[in-house]
């Protein structure tokens, strides 16, 4: 550490607690950041990092606990308040005014003026000073920020924080959208800011980065600070163990599944930004999990498959259909998506259960639909899942989160899809609904016949031999059999379905899936049977500590 640590820490957070309804987001968390220090905040998705930082920034008020800045009590009531006190946040999504120039953004809110008039020359000087302080006096002052690259925009945002005289700088996943070279430049800048006497909080999932840049770290798990200490000497393997150390106390159903023919095949699929490259094969009658951290590109992957995002290159093959297609085509081909954003994308909250459920497949005559017909179609699903509601005409808005999610899932069942793309299907719902959804997913992989005769066989990988009554997928005449074109008019599944499931909750993936592939920075690793995986291993791969082929321990062994 170059700057001398003063006796008083720059930032102190003591016994900070925060609850949202019944869930405890933070439970008596302590955090101490010294002047001239880079302090890494580490934890899994949902461990409480962002809640803690929002309290620091002033976006949330803590239920209990106290904060001090340079020994002074600090109690921001709004983000603007926090900024004034000298706490600046650099979020993953940058907060700049894209139409304003670099200078305009740096000076926003602190413009030097004489009366009502701007002092152009003084402003220029101050903006140029700020850019010099962040080591990039070469950035053009008059270009609209929207025209700059992400790395340059990030610099502008840092320069703005410096120009307003911040004392604590929080970087939230600053490298997730940067290229390698830019990351090194950013690290150079962070070291420079450190020497200038700023206190820096650094949040990242990529543990190698944490090791490279931070002086000390704090690990959060389930809303508690489980360990703080100097980074030097800490083993990455130990940090991962601290992050994931929890018990699995939920039971996941896994019947004896018999994966059939390949129904979804991706080959080097790349989106506009994410994913960078993804290949996989999904079979009928299996659940394939995609693990990874937020921002790794998991959602972008399924959205690209479903046609919600553009495909840059690579192949998508769904049964005998090849190439990208719009969502409307995907529904017709037998593919359905459950969005991770239930409220904004997944459901039309003001519409009724029946309307939501039958939306992709109104099943009307000549395009005409009758509300009563929709409700009649929805009723069997409401009973079967079951969806707890007063009637099929009840607005989805009034249902609980779990029941809303069941409506979103029932939509796929009603459309009788073969490939279910589930993006965080159990996020934010109660345990009872979770269990029902697990049961449902498991049942789908068996098809109708298997559902009644589901036999539990845990951690068993079985691939069924090719069945004589099922034509090979690549034969031209097989289209009808492979794709479910002749749709059954009953509401019961007939053929086993294929499920591609994204989840940030590892026990769920390990419990539900047959195979799991891990995504890191837009690249999807190979899918491996769950019997070869555990939380620790997935976490190592998801945080980039361990390369996919490398043996466990080699990456964590040479740390310290």
């Amino acid at each position, binding site marked *: 550490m170059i700057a001398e640590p003063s006796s008083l820490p720059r930032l102190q957070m003591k016994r900070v607690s925060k609850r949202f309804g019944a869930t405890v987001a933070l439970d008596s968390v302590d955090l101490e950041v010294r002047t001239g220090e880079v302090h890494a905040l580490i934890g899994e998705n949902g461990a409480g990092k962002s809640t803690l930082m929002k309290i620091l920034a002033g976006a949330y008020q803590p239920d209990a606990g106290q904060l001090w800045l340079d020994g002074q009590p600090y109690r921001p009531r709004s983000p603007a308040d926090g900024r004034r006190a000298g706490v600046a946040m650099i979020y993953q999504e940058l907060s700049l005014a*894209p139409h304003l120039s670099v200078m305009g953004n740096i000076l926003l809110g602190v413009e030097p003026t004489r009366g009502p008039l701007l002092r152009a020359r003084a402003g220029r000087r101050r903006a140029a000073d700020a850019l010099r302080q962040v080591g990039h006096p070469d950035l053009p002052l008059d270009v609209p920020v929207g025209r700059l690259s992400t790395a340059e925009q990030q610099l502008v945002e840092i320069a703005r924080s410096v120009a307003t005289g911040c004392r604590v700088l929080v970087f939230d996943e600053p490298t997730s959208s940067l290229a390698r070279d830019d990351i090194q430049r950013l690290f150079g800048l962070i070291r420079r800011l450190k020497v200038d006497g700023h206190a820096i909080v650094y949040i990242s999932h990529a543990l190698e980065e944490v090791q490279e840049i931070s002086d000390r770290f704090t690990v959060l798990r389930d809303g508690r600070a489980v360990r703080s200490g100097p980074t030097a000497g800490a083993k990455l393997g130990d940090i991962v163990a601290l992050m994931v150390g929890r018990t699995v106390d939920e039971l996941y159903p896994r019947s004896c599944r018999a994966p059939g023919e390949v129904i979804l095949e991706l080959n080097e699929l790349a989106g506009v930004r994410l994913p960078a490259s993804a290949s996989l094969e999904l079979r009928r009658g299996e659940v394939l999990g995609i693990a990874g951290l937020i921002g790794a590109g998991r959602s972008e992957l399924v959205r690209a498959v479903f046609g919600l995002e553009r495909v840059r290159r690579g192949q998508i093959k769904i049964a005998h259909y090849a190439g990208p297609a719009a969502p409307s085509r995907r529904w017709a081909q037998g593919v359905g998506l459950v969005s991770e954003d239930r409220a904004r994308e997944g459901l039309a909250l003001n519409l009724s259960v029946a309307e939501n459920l039958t939306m992709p497949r109104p099943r009307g005559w000549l395009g005409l639909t009758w509300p009563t017909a929709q409700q009649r179609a929805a009723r069997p699903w409401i009973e079967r899942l079951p969806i707890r509601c007063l009637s099929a005409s009840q607005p989805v808005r009034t249902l609980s989160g779990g029941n809303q999610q069941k409506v979103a899932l029932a939509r796929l069942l009603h459309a009788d899809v073969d490939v279910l793309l589930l993006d965080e299907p159990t996020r934010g719902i109660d345990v009872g609904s979770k269990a029902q959804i697990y049961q449902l997913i498991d049942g789908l992989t068996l098809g109708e016949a298997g559902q009644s005769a589901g036999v539990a066989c845990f951690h068993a990988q079985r691939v069924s031999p090719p069945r004589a009554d099922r034509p090979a997928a690549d034969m031209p005449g097989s289209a009808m059999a492979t794709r479910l074109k002749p749709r059954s008019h009953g509401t019961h599944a007939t053929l086993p379905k294929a499920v591609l499931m994204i989840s940030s909750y590892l026990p769920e993936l390990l419990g539900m899936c047959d195979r799991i592939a891990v995504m890191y920075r837009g690249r999807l690793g190979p899918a491996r049977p769950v019997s070869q995986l555990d939380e620790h291993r997935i976490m190592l791969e998801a945080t980039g500590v361990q390369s996919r082929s490398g043996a466990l321990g080699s990456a964590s062994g040479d740390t310290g």
Partner: protein
Amino acid sequence: MTRASTPFATNAGLGARSARIVARLGPMVGLLCVWLLFAALKRGDFVAWHNQRLMLLQTAVVGTAAVGATLVIISGGIDLSVGSSIALGTMVVALLLKAGHAPLAAALGTVAAAALWGSAIGAMVIGHVGRVAAIVLGMLTVHWTWKAAGPLGATAAGIGVVAVIGAFNEFALKRLPLSPFIVTLGMWGALRGAAKGLGDNQPVYPEHAGWLNDLLTTSTSGIGRILPPGVWLLLGLALLMGGVLRYTKFGRHVFAIGSNEQTARLCGIHVERTKLLIYMIAVACAGLAALLQFSFLSMGDPTTADGYELKVIAAVVIGGASLSGGEGSILGTIVGALIMTIVDNGCTKLGMQNWVQEIVTGGIIVTAVALDRWRHRRAE
């Protein structure tokens, strides 16, 4: 100009500057093209100086209102009540003149009154619907009870109404921000109604309007000989507002709010205060436009300027502003207003019928914005 693909590219400055100059010039080039088109088609009649002067004159009313609307649109808002504001403004000035006030007092009074209802619009946009309702209903109560209860009783009743509604607002409603589209859609009707009510559904003819009658005619001496005072007013206002947008803190904040309101708030800008000021200024500009319209009509007419709100928005948008905020310029707006006048004027000169003109104008609006978006996409 391509997006700076290499990070920290130092040559971004020069390219970007030239791109920005091109962006500024875009509407100007459009103006020139349209003018040259009609000049080629019609020659003498169209290019004559007196026709140029006529076209500037025809632009004055819409242009003046559009200067104010530019601020609103840059900040990400919209004003659909411009036409009604102009009509109400002509009524106010006509009534003030009829009541015997001097032209200057009448003019200033009109602009001040416009700023007042502009601040009511702004207050509703930033969430003070309850307060506006309290004040308006309080004033109406005073008006209705004046005869029955006398000055003292009427004032007491008014204060009572304000207190009741105000208290309800402060305790129950608090701040309730509304979209500018909805607020000004409401005011589009309400202000038109107020204009009709002021004159009992009839136009108001003041006897002595003084110089207010001559704003749109050329005089025999001074600069008025070159262009009528109304056009000078428009040019002066444009220069002033252009300067305000460019060289004042307020102007920067208008752009910042339109570009990213959250960021503006985070950086400590008083977003609400700024918005209130924006709507006050914009509607005051509509008040000035009302003076010009009055000068043109020589009367206060509650049905005048119907549909002007759309002409004003079209002028701003043709001038390169984005309806989602953050972009726009006064120069562009003036050019946009001129393009619309030239099309009107040129079509008339070519002997086209009214319906042809309307179709052509509609096409121009869509084309201009499409070209602007296309240019933007290439710039990124």
